[in-house]
């Protein structure tokens, strides 16, 4: 095989030219020798030789070899020439394919940026698994205590390493301006297990895990860049975090944002950097259960084996410390792409379905382009027939046609590549600013480029091969003989065309149906009553616990805040809480109700929130029994609880819950009230038991929550000022109306319905143009026949009926098939729906009606045109 065919072929072309010249020279010389005049001899010799260019051409074909490369070049040039001849087709097809490929590559880039790159910068993330303890749970709380984690890490036989972390907000003090940052407490092997090397300095040493000699901190690249101005000598310097000095020992490489998918850590410290958290490091239950754990499997170990191994270790731990491990304790392992910790649990539930929708759009587009191609090939039958009689076999013809499809789709792929480099970044639009340092976006890397290449090649093959195979079936002789009268384009092609139209309608129906269902779900979610007031509520987070105040100071400031904010004009009710519902987060704790015998393996986890007096009043959540918290429920008073209906019914069915006791964190809490159920995470959640504790007894974070008279947004500056009047250094952030925060809960419903809606629209346009194109084409092909029919007495209505009936027949078939297909597909999205069944008859009927009406309209235009033609010109036409 020649590697430089162009060079070789140039030489061969020159030699062929010389060979032919020599032939002519010798012929002339012979003739001159026989006595002919030079000029006549030249003329006669040339005449005798024949068409020089043609001889060269057919001779060249014998070289064949010039290699596949040269052959490909010739075929490509031919394909391009054919496409150039018909720019309308080329542009339409390319544009449609580009949109369809872009739809796929965009969703894929989102999957790539989230699920496929769960931990940016980490090595071989496929070997990483996240550990969950107890009942499998969507959006779980950190499952392990340090001691449990350490035992698992040291006693397993299947992991190359297991890391642990916990992250939260902290305030960077010391600078001119205090700044809030997300800090992670991590095990010393954290970066080792992830396989990340420091950009500057070093990471943590094993002996520093529990008690570092000096408190150490590792900075993220972005923090180093923004707050420390890329100081190359930062290592060894001391920085102040929540008013404590820590020594910078290293800087992580650019792009490294920590181990929880979708969240961004700014800095990392060891598990107990100041040595002040001894209790948490030496207990196994309650508040000491605070770590998220990720393990790296040893090579060759399967997830199943590893889970079994850890289960054995965990079993021993439970046997040794049964009181610390009540409830379910089995270990489940998830690959990082669908890890329930962080964003990927949600991604895994949403993005693959969207990719499936996009794939349907691509199929639909291929069917549409194939229709166009087929129509075009029919008019190219003569060309194909000639090529066939010249010796091209069917494979070569198909190859040529496929090549044209591939050329189209490669161009479309290139356009899609450019588009995707932009659309991949639109993913972040769906995530509003929230109280979490979310970093979610699509990524445009080699995976996506490969993806686009695969999508385009697939599309090209589909668009080109099918019609080509059909067209090449036509026997050459017949086609060559065929005159315009018999240009009915063959029953085979007609069937294929009809099939493609039916396919387009059948594919677009499920898209429309799913998008209809998802849009109605979104409307239902937005209109659902979450069980609490969210329209006139303003919330603001005060970073008390992360700013380095002492406990006494914190309590004092909290009371002051409440006092000041309550009296602001426009404030109806002010309260404090440490949790906002419907913000993709919750706090969970194991609770042991007195006198309640749990079922075997029943999870005892309850949701909990710490709320101040008048919290329920401000959110309009009625207290059904007992009382709300009062200012007297403070640290000195006995611990009290308000439970919701779900908790009351589960733990004390048929009894009065008031006065009952619950043990949490080893402490006894007494129930003083029952609140009506309200939404915790999602409108469509299955209710989990919730217990409210008194803010002044157990509150951790400080979130001010006020019910306003007017627009909560207008009150924001006044509230912020009131807090700063207490202490100007108080960090206040996330000041926003409740409505804005709770919209987080429907982020994924918005993504689903937006994309499904866009895809469905594309599908509808494609299907309608597809049926229009085919009916118009067929009607045009039958112009002559219609002319004859009219000439012998058919009325215009007959013509209309003729054309419409064929369109309607196709539409009907497509709708029937589409419905069958849709019933399968809606089952897949059933669990994304809210307030509407997967087979909702109203949606189904309206979608079928819409598609049917649009198809009818698409058929009507060609029919109308045919009806109004003058039969005489129609007959003459072909």
């Amino acid at each position, binding site marked *: 095989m020649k590697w430089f065919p162009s060079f070789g072929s140039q030489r061969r072309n020159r030699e062929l030219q010389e*060979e032919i010249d020599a*032939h002519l020279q010798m012929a002339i010389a012979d003739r001159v020798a026989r006595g002919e005049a030079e000029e006549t001899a030249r003329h006669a010799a040339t005449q005798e030789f024949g068409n020089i260019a043609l001889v060269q051409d*057919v001779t060249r074909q014998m070289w064949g070899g010039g290699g596949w490369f040269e052959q490909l070049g010739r075929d490509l040039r031919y394909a391009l020439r054919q496409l150039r001849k018909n720019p309308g087709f080329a542009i339409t097809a390319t544009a449609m394919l580009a949109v369809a490929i872009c739809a796929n590559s965009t969703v894929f880039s989102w999957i790539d940026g989230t699920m496929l790159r769960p931990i940016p910068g980490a090595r071989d993330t496929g070997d990483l698994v996240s550990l969950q303890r107890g009942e499998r749970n969507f959006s779980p709380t950190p499952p392990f205590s340090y001691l449990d984690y350490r035992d698992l890490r040291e006693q397993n036989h299947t992991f190359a390493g297991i890391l642990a972390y916990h992250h939260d907000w902290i305030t960077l003090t010391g600078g001119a301006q205090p700044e809030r940052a997300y800090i992670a407490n991590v095990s010393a092997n954290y970066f080792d297990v992830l396989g990340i090397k420091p950009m500057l300095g070093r990471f943590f040493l094993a002996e520093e895990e529990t008690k570092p000699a000096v408190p150490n901190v590792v900075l993220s690249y972005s923090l180093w860049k923004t707050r420390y101005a890329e100081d190359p000598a930062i290592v060894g310097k001391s920085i102040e975090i929540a008013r404590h000095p820590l020594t910078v020992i290293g800087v992580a490489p650019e792009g490294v944002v920590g181990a929880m998918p979708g969240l961004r850590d700014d800095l990392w410290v060891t598990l107990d950097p100041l040595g002040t958290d001894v209790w948490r490091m030496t207990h196994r239950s309650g508040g000491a259960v605070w770590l998220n754990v990720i393990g790296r499997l040893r090579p060759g170990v399967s997830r199943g084996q590893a889970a079994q191994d850890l289960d054995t270790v965990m079993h021993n731990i439970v046997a040794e410390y049964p009181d610390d491990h009540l409830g379910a304790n089995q270990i489940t392992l998830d690959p990082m792409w669908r890890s329930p910790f962080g964003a990927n649990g949600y991604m895994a539930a949403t993005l693959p379905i969207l990719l499936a929708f996009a794939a349907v759009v691509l199929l639909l587009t291929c069917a549409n382009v194939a229709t166009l191609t087929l129509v075009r090939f029919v008019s190219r039958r003569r060309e194909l027939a000639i090529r066939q009689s010249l010796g091209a076999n069917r494979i070569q013809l198909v190859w040529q046609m496929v090549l044209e499809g591939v050329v189209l789709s490669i161009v479309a792929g290139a356009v899609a590549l450019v588009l995707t480099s932009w659309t991949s970044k639109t993913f972040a639009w769906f995530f509003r600013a929230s109280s979490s340092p979310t970093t979610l976006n699509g990524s445009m890397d080699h995976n996506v480029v490969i993806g686009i290449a695969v999508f385009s090649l697939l599309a090209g093959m589909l668009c080109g091969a099918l019609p080509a195979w059909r067209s090449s079936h036509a026997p050459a002789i017949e086609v060559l003989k065929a005159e315009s009268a018999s240009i009915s384009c063959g029953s085979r092609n007609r069937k294929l065309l009809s099939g493609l139209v039916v396919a387009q309608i059948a594919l677009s129906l499920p898209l429309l149906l799913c998008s209809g269902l998802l849009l109605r779900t979104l409307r239902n979610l937005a209109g659902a009553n979450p069980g609490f007031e969210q329209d006139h509520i303003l919330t603001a987070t005060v970073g008390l616990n992360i700013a380095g105040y002492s406990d006494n100071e914190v309590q004092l400031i909290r009371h002051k805040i409440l006092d000041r904010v309550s009296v602001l004009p426009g404030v109806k009710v002010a309260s404090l809480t440490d949790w906002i519902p419907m913000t993709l987060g919750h706090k969970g704790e194991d609770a042991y109700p007195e006198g309640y015998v749990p079922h075997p393996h029943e999870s005892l986890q309850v949701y909990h929130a710490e709320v101040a007096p008048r919290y329920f009043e401000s959110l309009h959540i009625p207290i059904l029994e007992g009382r709300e918290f009062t200012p007297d429920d403070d640290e000195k008073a006995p611990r009290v609880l308000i439970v919701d209906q779900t908790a009351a019914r589960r733990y004390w069915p048929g009894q009065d819950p008031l006065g009952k006791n619950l043990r949490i964190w080893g402490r006894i809490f007494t129930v003083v009230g029952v609140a009506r159920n309200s939404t915790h995470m999602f409108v469509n959640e299955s209710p989990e038991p919730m217990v409210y504790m008194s803010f002044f007894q157990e509150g951790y974070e400080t979130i001010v929550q006020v019910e306003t008279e007017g627009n909560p947004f207008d009150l924001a500056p006044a509230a912020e000022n009131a807090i700063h009047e207490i202490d100007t250094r108080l960090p206040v952030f996330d000041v926003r109306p409740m409505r804005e925060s709770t919209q987080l809960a429907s982020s994924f419903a918005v993504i689903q319905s937006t994309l499904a809606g866009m895809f469905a629209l594309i599908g509808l346009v494609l299907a309608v143009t597809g049926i229009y194109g085919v009916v118009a084409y067929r009607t045009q092909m039958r112009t002559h026949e219609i002319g004859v029919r009219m000439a012998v007495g058919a009325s215009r209505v007959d013509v209309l009926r003729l054309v419409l009936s064929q369109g309607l027949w196709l539409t009907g078939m497509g709708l029937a098939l589409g419905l069958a297909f849709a019933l399968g597909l809606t089952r897949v999205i059933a669990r994304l729906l809210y307030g509407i069944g997967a087979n909702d008859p109203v949606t189904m009927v309206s979608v079928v009606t819409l598609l049917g009406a649009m198809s009818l309209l698409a058929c009507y235009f060609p029919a109308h045109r045919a009806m109004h033609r003058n039969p005489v010109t129609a007959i003459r036409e072909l």
Partner: protein
Amino acid sequence: MNEKEQYKNRVELLQGTLDMLILQTLQWGPQHGYGIVQALRVQSGDVLQVETGSLYPALHRLERQGWVQSEWKQSESKQKARYYRITAKGKKQLASDLDRWEQIVEAIGLVMYKPKESAS
């Protein structure tokens, strides 16, 4: 298109035969394209007139198949020309072509002459 088709058809029509004729001509020594045309014409008593549109594709195909080799040489009349020489492989091919040709001639002869014999 049509002209090209004609040539191509003729090539295909003559394929086996033309190859054999060319190889046979080259048995007497290396020859260039023009020489082969002349030799075939003379030897067939002016009956066979090989078209260039058939000859050159055939020569180039034979070369690709390794049955002939070519080189550029000066002719007696100082004309630089491409000379084709039959290879060992080509000779084998010629032998088998000839076999097949004789079989065909014999077979056709059987078909064509038998009825006459029985009639007489």
